[in-house]
């Protein structure tokens, strides 16, 4: 490796991590990137979001667990956990059916990264939360209803 490149890689934060990683060829190619196409995020219904994700034929799976409150006290910050024991899990997405735009987050899981995330999301109203996983054999999904007393999208 030329010394300049080594120094650049060592310099770290000044260049911005994504730029740094892209320059070093370490970011995944094509659409499978953090800065990939965002069409699915603009979908206004669950069906459209699944279609945009290529997941219309997702099969229900008991190997995907969604953890969260039964009733969310604060719809603006609903804690969710998604955990899947599906072999070859490479993508994971979180959708909230009744949100204006159901797709909330999408993750790419490189080799060695578990299908296991926890986060906090906004829910507009009581709704199914859907976890979608792309694994060996295709797409799988699970749903869990979370009740919301005070909607979390306009405040």
């Amino acid at each position, binding site marked *: 490796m030329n010394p300049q490149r080594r120094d650049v890689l060592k310099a770290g934060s000044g260049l*911005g991590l*994504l730029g740094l990683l892209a320059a070093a060829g370490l970011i995944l190619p094509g659409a*499978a990137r*953090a800065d990939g196409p965002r069409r699915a995020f603009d979908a206004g219904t669950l069906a459209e979001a699944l279609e945009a994700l290529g997941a219309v034929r997702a099969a229900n799976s008991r190997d995907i667990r969604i953890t969260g409150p039964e009733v969310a006290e604060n719809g603006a910050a609903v804690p969710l956990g998604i955990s899947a024991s599906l072999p070859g899990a490479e993508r994971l997405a979180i959708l909230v059916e009744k949100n204006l735009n159901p797709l909330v987050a999408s993750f790419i899981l490189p080799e060695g990264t578990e299908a296991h995330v926890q986060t906090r*999301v906004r*829910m507009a109203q009581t709704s199914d939360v859907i976890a979608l996983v792309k694994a060996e054999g295709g797409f799988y999904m699970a749903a869990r209803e979370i009740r919301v007393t005070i909607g979390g999208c306009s405040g």
Partner: protein
Amino acid sequence: MADPMKIRAVARDGVTEVRVQIAHDMENGQRRDDSGAIVPPWFITELTGTHAGRVVLQAQFGAAMSRNPYLAFRFRGGARGETVAVAWKDTRGETRTDAVPIT
């Protein structure tokens, strides 16, 4: 520049668990301010986690991630002292990267 992220990366039994607490208003574009005007959207759209320079997570967010987002994830591998970094970019093109050693 945004406030630093709080990142904890702990390695145990061959798996490193990363927990990130990010400081960001995450305006979803539906909130109204005191004068009744809509506060325009401003939120993190992408996030990348790396371990020793190798990408271990790529995330895309919509507008429904909560203010001051929290994220936890796990990957196989990682040893004490090695670096875990998290980088994000938002709708204004602002970015932030923070890194911690695995404990």
